[in-house]
């Protein structure tokens, strides 16, 4: 584990990019990637929770008794998730309506608990932040990428995150391939991306 801070950050962007390499946290990946705005919104919320929980878990790693470490991690994670939920309602209410139940479900996202258990509880705060940020940004990129493919073909648009702008890609005559924005389209799309990632990795 003699990695530098930069390596801890960049591993989350390719080598351990959560949904595509670790194949973790698929519930939001499949459910909220109908539009780029939703996907990136979800990614940013999860990144915030991940960085904060990694930092706190790492700071408290010598205080928390190992027998009750999972309940302690859950308290920390759940606290930040509720903070995100409240803040999102206050500043981005339409996004909150779109993401709905998937915001509270960040609590049980295995990426976040996984990083707390596997990394933050064994490493000092600074690498933990780098790790959380890297994995979080990787998660956001993955969500945005998958959502981009699905939205482009499924609706013929790309919505810009954190604004109301929607770009029409193919003009008005484009007949949307709606299969892509429905649930089965998410599985097909994810499968294709996983296959491409494996090909690229070989």
């Amino acid at each position, binding site marked *: 584990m003699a990695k530098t801070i930069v390596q801890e950050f960049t591993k989350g962007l390719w080598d351990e990019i959560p949904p595509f390499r670790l194949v973790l946290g698929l519930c939001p990946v499949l459910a909220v990637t109908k539009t780029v705005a939703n996907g990136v919104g979800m990614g940013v919320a999860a990144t915030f929770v991940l960085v904060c929980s990694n930092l706190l878990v790492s700071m408290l790693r010598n205080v928390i008794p190992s027998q009750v470490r999972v309940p302690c991690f859950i308290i*920390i994670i759940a*606290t930040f998730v509720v903070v995100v939920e409240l*803040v999102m*309602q*206050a500043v981005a209410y339409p996004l909150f309506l779109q993401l709905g139940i998937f915001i509270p479900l960040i609590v049980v996202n295995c990426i976040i608990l996984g990083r707390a258990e596997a990394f933050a509880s064994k490493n000092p705060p600074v690498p933990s932040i780098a790790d959380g940020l890297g994995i979080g940004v990787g998660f956001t990129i993955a969500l945005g990428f998958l959502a981009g493919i699905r939205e482009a073909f499924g609706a013929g648009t790309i919505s810009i995150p954190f604004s109301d702008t929607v770009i029409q890609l193919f003009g008005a005559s484009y007949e949307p391939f709606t299969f892509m924005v429905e649930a089965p389209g998410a599985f097909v799309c994810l499968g294709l991306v996983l296959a491409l990632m494996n090909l690229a990795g070989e």
Partner: protein
Amino acid sequence: MRDIIRMVVVLGVMAAVSGALLSGVKSGTAAQIEYQQLKFVKGPAIKMILEGCSNDPLVDRFKLKDGDVERGFYVGVFDGNPNAVAYETSGKGFAGPIGVMMGVNVETEKLLGVGVTTHSETPGLGSRAKDDPSFGAQFGGMSVFEPFKVKPDGGVVDAVSGATITSRGVCEGVTEGGEIYARLKPQIIEQAKAFGK
């Protein structure tokens, strides 16, 4: 034994800190969240009814007790005169309750318009009561105290075609809204005055 005490203390302290933090965040964001919910759920109907007012009706609002329920009123200022209020009632629709926002001019006691806020009506049929502004607009200029009925029931209101039950529900809501206005009129006028500039 020592281990158990340590576990209890650590978990207890963490839960307490988390609870304190969350109650802080909750009370800090409560006002903003209420405003956002108003803006996106009731805002479009209020904006349509009180079109052209010089204030923000979502900020200039007050609450009144009507028996057991508390009702929210949104004030519209026209030409520096806070003479319009909008408030919500509800009627029974085809598939569930319909939230009906109605605006009243407190000087002439005539309706300014009616808009649907929340509903679970059939998309494309009943939902047009919300999406087609001309349905709500036809209430404009009518007296608040009139009982409203759709034309098939012998009234004056044009029902949305294909959605008579929805339209009837909206009329029911507006009629009930007139009763609410009659009950609370002195308080409404009193409270609305406070928003005059």
